[in-house]
């Protein structure tokens, strides 16, 4: 469970970007993933897209999860994708979490966000989703 093909724990970076001080949700997600055997790297609050992408690369994560509760999703995700591409790191799976309008969730998916897990997603579904997307990617 929660292991990738090299039977290592799935590595997830959980990030809070910009002027968003709400981290209770992301901490609960971190704890849930930990309790399901994943290695979770947490960045802390108020990070820039540059910091987050650098961290995701250095930590060689399977998944970059960005939590947004401040409404800036359509600004920061394009920046994150741009930086990932620039660093030839677009094999990192990007997942969004938080609270946002449905049309924004659709826009994010079109942009390349693999899954948008909003505030009403049960913990079990988050774990299953992350396991599935890593399994679908295969070894690297």
């Amino acid at each position, binding site marked *: 469970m929660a292991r990738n093909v*090299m039977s290592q724990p799935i590595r997830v970076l959980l990030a809070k970007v910009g002027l968003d001080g709400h981290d209770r949700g992301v901490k609960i997600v971190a704890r849930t993933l930990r309790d399901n055997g994943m*290695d979770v790297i947490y960045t802390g609050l108020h990070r*820039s897209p540059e910091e987050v992408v650098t961290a995701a*690369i250095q*930590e*060689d994560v399977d998944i970059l999860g960005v939590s947004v509760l401040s409404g800036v999703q359509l600004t920061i995700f394009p920046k994150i994708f741009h930086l990932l591409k620039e660093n030839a790191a677009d094999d990192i799976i990007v997942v969004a979490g938080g609270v946002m309008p449905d049309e924004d969730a659709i826009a994010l998916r079109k942009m390349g966000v693999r899954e948008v897990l909003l505030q009403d997603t049960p913990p079990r579904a988050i774990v299953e989703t992350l396991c599935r997307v890593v399994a679908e990617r295969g070894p690297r």
Partner: protein
Amino acid sequence: MANYIPSTKLVERVCAGDMRAVSRLISRAEAGVAEVRSALAEIYRATGRAHVVGITGVPGSGKSTLVGKVVQRLRADGRKIGIVAVDPSSPYSGGAILGDRVRMSEIGTDPGVFIRSMATHGAIGGMARAAMDAVDILDVAGYDTIIIETVGVGQDEVEIARASHTTIVVSAPGLGDEIQAIKAGMLEIADIHVVSKCDRSDAARTLTDLKSMLVLGALGSGDDWRVPVIGTSAISGEGLDELIDAITRHRRVAFETELGQRRRRSVAEFRLLKTAEALLAERFVKARSDRTAEYTEQLLARTGDPYALACALIDHSLKTEQGSTDDENT
């Protein structure tokens, strides 16, 4: 397997300092896949330039914060710095929260700094099994100083002293008196003592306790090195320059003196024994499962004793393993 780059192919890119190749090879080393061994062998032969600094101390003593501040200052003279930050894995789920980066935000986008978080994955002693492999990889990638930050430790996790050229032990104020300071264990291994949070009023007491401990035993002191006790504050910046100076001086001791030569030999010996131990444990864990339940029952029913059953389990496991892997070893 279309996207799988063989580890030996990554080595060349690591030598050129490619950040993605460095991080991927560290992941492979952590996974311990058989395929990575020849790549790590090639890496190891090219190591030996970097100054390896270990930082250890009790949980919450301010290790990560101190690393952030120290690295900022070390970067001022252009040195590239690698950091391996270890945090504990859950003994129940195997998962981990790796939170050391939270305290290092000021160096998060510095292109001359590489931070890698690592979970212990069941290793004891405050280190992760692959931490030394990560240090080698960063060394070859051109990082001049590599800092290993251990998990928050208690009193006797002293492995870091046998994995680093310079060991810094961080103590926080208010956690014990002079009796704690004269106990054996962690406090003995320091090349440099730091008392963090010295903006607090009770820090003076901790500084005094540590200094009197050193006077009593003259621990670790010789002609080449005298262990300093430095009070630091991440808030005011107090003591940080003194600490940088001590690290720089000890770097010279590690690379230019007889004491340093002995230390580096001890690091090599530890590496050899630790690796052998890990391989042995891996073989044992792989092979032991079929008799574990049976022997547990015997132990529970008191029809066997721990020593005899453990010996039988070892004999059985390693014999089974020997037979089954002969082909791949020869």
